[in-house]
């Protein structure tokens, strides 16, 4: 009898635990995804078109500001479309991609999700993304007031896997007051490397601040622009299976310049600069330097907020004998639709709203970059801060001079980027010669790109 009782107890506990798992799995799996269903979705009052209840999943990465703005935009959408429920989930950039790859492996990607130039090729190549061209042609996603170049930023082999959420160009952020204090002219759109070097030298001499925070070549996009103004198409070749430039001359020229500026003390010492990972930690945001080397223009507003004053943006210095400007316009990020989505029509309608609705975009105020839609830009521009307006104008100016450029990253890009960063650190800390590092980059990056493309 006792044994039977034990058995009964055991199965009761097991049952309780299992059902506990079961019921708790519901909220835990959707814990990050707050479903803001309009519970009272009355079908009677729904608009005349399609009234079947639809559920769409949307995922993005970003800061708290972006989370709040996106949630507000979705609320607006769900009020206008009572039959649609948008479930959303969000997180930081690194964990976002861990999650996305796990979701892809489980064939469980959201219907619409924020996509990066660094990963779009990986996901497109593996058939995870849907071609959005049919929706653009049918007008569900209305790109009629987009410049042609913006429509095709996410095109791979003729298929449109990503629509730009906003555009940006690499820039240098600077504090105009420090320039005035040092008595040097603010950068113009045609300033050269000579101008840049003399500017940071003068500022360092005449003020308590460093001229620049990180020298432009501290990130690979700096090297990229240096190559472009010296006649190359970029770091990675057009087929994305190797390097374009397999010579160390330009590498040596650029990094010799960086090393000289570090040794002269015109930029923040490298052991300090290397720990400034977020834009809020950089010299221009903390008041340690007058400028911040090359950063994406959509980060300027965050830097200005951290600094507590309006900042301006300048372009990458030109080479005096350049054949084309180094600058390029690119999407800060895309919106992509998953091939596995079961509600592609409803998802396309939501994408159209997020990209092209002027009222909705007034909520996010170009936080994701300068929008492709002219109507949206016109509606939003008056609401921007001075720094925001400067960025919008800058991207407009760069759009006129920057040649068309295919900015989608090769599959092995993140590994090549890590290799670049490591070599820059090795060189600047004097652990390796500049020429030697250049050779190493050519051999190893080329091999990584080749291996990435062959899969």
């Amino acid at each position: 009898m006792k044994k039977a009782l034990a058995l009964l107890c055991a199965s009761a506990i097991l049952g309780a635990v299992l059902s506990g798992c079961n019921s708790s799995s519901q909220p835990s799996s959707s814990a990050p995804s707050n479903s803001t269903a309009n519970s009272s979705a009355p079908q009677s009052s729904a608009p005349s078109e399609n009234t079947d209840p639809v559920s769409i999943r949307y995922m993005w990465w970003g800061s708290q500001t972006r989370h709040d703005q996106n949630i507000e935009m979705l609320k607006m959408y769900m009020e206008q479309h009572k039959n649609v429920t948008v479930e959303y989930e969000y997180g930081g950039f690194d964990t976002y991609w861990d999650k996305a790859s796990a979701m892809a492996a489980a064939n469980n990607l959201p219907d619409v999700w924020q996509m990066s130039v660094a990963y779009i090729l990986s996901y497109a190549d593996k058939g995870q993304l849907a071609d959005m061209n049919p929706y653009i042609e049918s007008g569900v996603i209305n790109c009629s007031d987009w410049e042609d170049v913006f429509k095709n930023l996410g095109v791979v082999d003729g298929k449109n896997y990503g629509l730009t959420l906003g555009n940006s160009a690499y820039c240098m952020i600077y504090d105009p007051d420090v320039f005035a204090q040092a008595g040097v002219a603010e950068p113009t759109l045609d300033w050269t490397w000579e101008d840049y070097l003399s500017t940071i030298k003068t500022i360092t001499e005449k003020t308590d601040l460093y001229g620049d925070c990180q020298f432009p070549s501290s990130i690979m996009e700096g090297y990229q622009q240096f190559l472009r103004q010296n006649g190359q198409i970029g770091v990675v070749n057009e087929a994305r299976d190797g390097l374009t430039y397999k010579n160390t001359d330009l590498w040596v020229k650029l990094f010799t310049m960086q090393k000289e500026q570090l040794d002269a003390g015109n930029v923040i010492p490298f052991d300090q600069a290397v720990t400034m990972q977020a834009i809020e930690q950089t010299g221009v945001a903390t008041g340690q330097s007058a400028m911040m080397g090359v950063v994406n223009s959509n980060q300027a507003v965050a830097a200005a907020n951290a600094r507590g004053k309006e900042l301006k943006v300048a372009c990458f210095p030109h080479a005096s004998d350049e054949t084309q400007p180094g600058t390029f316009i690119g999407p800060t990020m895309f919106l992509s639709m998953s091939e596995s989505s079961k509600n592609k029509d409803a998802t396309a309608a939501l994408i159209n709203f997020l990209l092209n609705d002027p009222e909705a975009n007034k909520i996010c105020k170009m936080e994701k970059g300068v929008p492709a839609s002219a109507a949206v830009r016109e509606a939003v521009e008056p609401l921007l801060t001075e720094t925001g307006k400067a960025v919008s104008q800058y991207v407009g100016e760069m759009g006129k001079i920057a040649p068309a450029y295919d900015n989608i990253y090769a599959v092995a890009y993140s590994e090549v980027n890590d290799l670049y960063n490591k070599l820059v650190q090795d060189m600047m800390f004097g652990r390796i010669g500049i020429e030697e590092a250049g050779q190493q980059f050519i051999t190893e990056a080329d091999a990584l790109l080749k291996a990435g493309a062959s899969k």
Partner: protein
Amino acid sequence: MKAAKKKKGRDFGVDNLSGYLLIGPWLVGFFLFTLYPLFSSLYYSFTSYDLLTSPKWVGVQNYINVFADARFYQSMKVTFIYALVHVPLKLLFALGIALLFNMKHRGIGIYRTLYYVPSIVGGSIAVSVMWVQLFASKGPFNNLLAKIGIDISRNWIGDPDTSLMMIIILAVWQFGSPMLIFLAGLKQIPVSYYEAAEIDGANVFQRFIKITVPSLSPVIFFNLLMQIIGAFMAFTQCYIVSNGTGGPSDTTLFYALYIYLQGLKYHKMGFGCALAWIMVIIIALITLLIFKTSDTWVFYESDD
């Protein structure tokens, strides 16, 4: 006959069944979340797997690639330096503090609690973030040095010569759990041993070497093993302190971090799994080595 059969049935049937049912939830978790991933990672280590498409069998190619990879040796070097420096330091520190806490003192309970706090919070992200601030070029640590006349603007985390040292210090600072185990071990040593030694004229140092260390050796053995295994799996601190890069100049590229980079950041899960299995073998060998040598220096009371 019938009774015996029935008894057997009860012993191996109902009894075992209720036992299995009771541990059932744990078993489900174990099979699903430990055993299955374990064996699938072994399988993946022989495949080319990018997480987005199904794995392709490539034989031992991943292992060949690992041994040709310079960053593999760098991460090995970093992890071994970390283990070899941090484990002895941490154990010495923990033993020293445990000896202090073993003394009869007023308010000793409060001190014990206070000294354990870093171990509770130390593995957390907040402390790693604090560490970055503490050793920044204008951080509290440099300010303190300036107060005593050493003017230095070095960023201890950003400088490749000191970055690993900072993570080692962070880890040593979390000496709480081995300390508690040492303390429990110290309490087990009979006071009569010390009294007898004292009567025979042994001084403090002799008593420590001849009584404390041998009596404590099983505890030292246990702590050593746990800390070494822990050291090879260290991840959180270097991930946060280096912002997930293992930088500057790969000087904090811990092995576990490198597995993460290869598997999840570069989408080379097969390569990452091969790395993980190499680590399993290394930890197994080291554990075996420590076990083998333990005969010579670990004394159990029953042996005497």
